[in-house]
């Protein structure tokens, strides 16, 4: 009995791995086994015409309940992917914190260069969006642009997502077998898994980037709150007019502040602040506390710039990567080799016509060994046939029988005769024979095309009982059907003869034989 599993609609990477393992194990099973299993599972699963992914996940859940190997792979893959995500987040936190400390480095004698802070913490990560976009280009485009696929490949190769792939191999040491399996599977079905691989890498890279930006934002806020930051800006490329330089910078900062201008118009440096915060290293003077406090007014702008131009784009790219990754996982799940066969079997299982119970053991096995042989009564060859019994009205003309066995008594049993008539015939045959003088054989004509029934066996046994001590043989002659429907003594086919011989041989009566034709009867 399957335990009910909560219905899931969204597969993850671990499902892809577990499904691949389950389908691989199915390859070792016979079609019959698989069909029987699906027949058992089908009633527990959603109808096959519902969402195929839901059916796939439910099927996988049911398989995992039966197969510990698949369950174990799923569990290990899930753990490894979770740990990888955590490790990436931790690495991003470390890098982000160090980068923020470096960018906000303030030795107390000068000012924090606001431009440098934004360049390091927002500009460079922003530029790194370009490789993401390149790597995310659809195959149809990269294939058409010469070199685009190579550049996209390079972008993926240099992506921090690679760190995730490396971690997935390293962290999951206990899942070594699973990793090897995934690697083999991916190598064997490169085209199938390429989408999943690409988007898994990009999702990890965007997860790293988002964690980095969030750390930067948090670290910047921490520094703003717990340290005294005095921001400034500086340039060598001056126009010679300080007011003009400041206006240019103000234009840039105003432009950058457009996204939040409507909600926080003060969160941008004023022209006066910009003019005031420009500094020259050679002329740098220690700041008075009031000046330092004023120069700290840059912070809302810096924090919001990090949030809007650092965090938000990465949130967006992570959402895109996540969504594309899920789509790739769903597509891969549906096109996994062998999965269509699962769906077909599940659908077939809705209609069942076969037997519920297996066929019982071969019934003939217990009766195939001959019964205990009777006390040997050596037959005399060359006996004349003293009686011919037509069993169940074999359609044969009397003249041909009379011609073949002129001295034999003509009798009939089976078929339309009653059981009482059969018994009387046997008694009659027994009483009419004198063992000392009469040694004629009894010939029974049977229909070769009909199988020997127990009713006939009963008759033969009863006859033998009546002829006990008699050295006469009982000869059974299966008569065949001729193609022209004539009614002569036609020989039965070899298959029919074999059937009669095998069945009667099991009686273990040495004085009972099956003859193929008239000559054999006389032999």
């Amino acid at each position, binding site marked *: 009995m399957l335990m009910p599993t909560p219905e899931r609609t969204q597969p993850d990477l671990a499902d892809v791995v577990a499904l691949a393992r389950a389908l691989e194990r199915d390859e070792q099973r016979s079609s019959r086994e698989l069909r029987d299993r699906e027949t058992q599972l089908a009633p527990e699963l959603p109808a096959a015409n519902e969402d195929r992914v839901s059916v796939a996940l439910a099927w996988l859940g049911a398989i995992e309940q039966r197969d510990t190997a698949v369950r174990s792979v799923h569990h290990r893959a899930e753990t490894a992917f979770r740990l990888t995500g955590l490790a990436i987040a931790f690495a991003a936190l470390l890098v982000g914190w160090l980068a923020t400390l470096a960018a906000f480095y303030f030795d107390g004698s000068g000012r924090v260069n606001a431009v440098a802070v934004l360049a390091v913490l927002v500009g460079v990560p922003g530029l790194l969006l370009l490789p993401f976009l390149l790597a995310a280009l659809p195959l149809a485009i990269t294939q058409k642009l010469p070199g685009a696929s190579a550049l996209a490949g390079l972008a993926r190769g240099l992506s921090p997502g690679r760190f995730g792939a490396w971690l997935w191999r390293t962290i999951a040491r206990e899942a070594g077998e699973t990793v090897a399996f995934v690697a083999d599977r991916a190598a064997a079905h490169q085209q*199938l898994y390429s989408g999943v691989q690409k988007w898994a890498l990009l999702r990890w890279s965007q997860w790293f980037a988002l964690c980095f930006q969030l750390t930067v934002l948090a670290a910047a806020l921490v520094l703003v709150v717990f340290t005294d930051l005095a921001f400034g800006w500086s340039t060598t490329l001056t126009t010679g007019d300080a007011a003009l330089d400041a206006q240019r910078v103000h234009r840039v900062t105003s432009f950058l502040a457009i996204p939040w201008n409507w909600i926080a118009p003060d969160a941008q440096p004023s022209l006066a602040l910009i003019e005031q915060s420009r500094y020259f290293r050679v002329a740098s003077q220690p700041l008075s506390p009031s000046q330092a406090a004023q120069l700290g007014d840059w912070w809302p702008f810096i924090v919001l710039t990090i949030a809007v131009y650092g965090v938000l784009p990465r949130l967006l790219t992570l959402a895109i990567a996540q969504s594309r990754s899920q789509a790739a996982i769903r597509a891969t799940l549906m096109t996994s080799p062998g999965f269509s066969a699962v769906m077909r079997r599940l659908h077939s299982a809705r209609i069942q016509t076969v037997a519920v119970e297996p066929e019982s053991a071969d019934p003939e096995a217990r009766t195939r060994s001959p019964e205990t042989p009777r006390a040997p009564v050596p037959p005399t060859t060359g006996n004349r046939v003293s009686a011919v019994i037509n069993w169940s009205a074999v359609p044969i003309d009397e003249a041909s029988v009379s011609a073949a066995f002129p001295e034999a008594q003509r009798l009939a049993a089976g078929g339309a005769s009653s059981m009482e008539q059969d018994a009387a015939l046997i008694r009659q045959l027994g009483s009419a024979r004198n063992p000392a003088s009469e040694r004629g054989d009894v010939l029974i004509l049977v229909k070769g095309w009909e199988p020997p029934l*127990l009713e006939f066996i009963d008759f033969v046994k009863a006859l033998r009982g009546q002829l006990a001590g008699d050295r006469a043989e009982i000869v059974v002659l299966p008569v065949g059907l001729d193609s022209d429907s004539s009614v002569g003594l036609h020989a039965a086919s070899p298959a029919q003869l074999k059937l009669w011989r095998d069945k009667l041989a099991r009686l273990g009566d040495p004085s009972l034989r099956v003859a193929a034709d008239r000559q054999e009867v006389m032999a």
Partner: protein
Amino acid sequence: MSTPTFAIVGHPNKGKSSLVATLARDASVRIGPEPGTTVHAREFPMRAGGKVLYTLVDTPGFQRARAALDWLKQHDTSAGSRADIVAKFVQTHEHEDRFRNECELLRPVIAGAGLIYVVDGATPYGPEYDAEMEILRWTGQPSLAVINPIGEPRFVEPWRRALEQFFRVVRVLDVMKAPFDQQLELLRAFGQLRETWRQPLEEAVTALIEHRERQSSDAARVIVDMIAEALGHQETKDLGQGEDPARHAASLETNYQRRLRAIEARARREVESLYGFDELDREEIDMTLLETDLLSKESWLIFGLKKRDLVVVSATGGAIAGGVVDSALLGASFLAGSLVGGVIGGAIGYFSSSKLADLKLLRQPMGGVRLRYGPSRNVPFPFVLLNRALLHHTVVEGRTHAQRGALTIRDGNAAAMEAVQFVGDSTRELARLFDRLRRSEPGTEARADALATLTNEVMKLMALQEESARDPRGSSAPLLGSGQ
């Protein structure tokens, strides 16, 4: 309302189990020439969506019918109905070995099952059948007789005359070869035996028709997937610098052919499994490939880069480096840095690609020659695959579960090659779809669309084939070809 149940009864070896195997689509039913192959009644419930619509019961044949009838007649003096006497017979003898078969076959009948009496139309009627039919008449259950001509139907008419004295409905059906529609017709006839059985049997027939349609469409999809896989298949071998390609060419070709045959064999198994046949032996002539010159050579570089890619990547790298200089000069250089950097980078990429192939990293060559065998570009090749698959499908679809022995398919290659000469209306459409398959990548929407469209085309061909199989005047000519 109780589920309609039908006991398949009769003389031994007249095709009872074969009829059950055919109608229940169950190849596990034991069928043998020896009488007494079936010793226990075995139930075959037909379930659709979890609901049992009817049940077939395979029973052992009569072995001592005259003795049983004698017993019944001896007990016919009581005031009870004859059906009660039959029930009493079963009750009295069910633990005895003597009337084991008779009890097994009568038990479902006294429980209310309809009677399906099976005889062999290739052998003559005889008086030994009278006792059996008389016993069945005593049960009072609705009944139907099936004349099953095992071989030549020489005695169908005498049988019909004899049976019509005992049974309301008499049908002739070759249970070994009965086509699907004849099987359904027989099931409908079962439903006519009692008014309350009509609806569930009609429901069952509808479900079976839907199921058969689904099987066909699934089989079409399996065939199309097989063709797509075979068309895209290629064998590759990366050679290091200086390795002789000739040494590997033969093994690549062998592997390519072996793999194609394996792809075809797997699809065959799946189609057979769809129709409920497992582990069938197949007698089929192996596929002959229509082309043997599929070997090609190309140079390769590490990371899957081609020479063209390396040039583009190097040029881009150079342009970016030049761009840094341009930025530093605040545009004063008019992008000359990017331009010059791009040209220099591209040139370096172009001239270093051959050198890169000579290098080794961690003892692994960074480039070399790639030998490729396949994929096939031959136009008739997918037509041959499709024709062979359709031929196989026809044989599987027409096979009943009563048939034993290997699945014999006539010379598939010959039939397929004949087809190439044939120009059909759908041929051009198929050629176009095969071309789309060749050009699309697995996993893309274009591939999915091509597969779906081709599946529809294949289903149409299957329907045509089924029609021509039903029509005895229909020619056995294949349905399609390249028509080029």
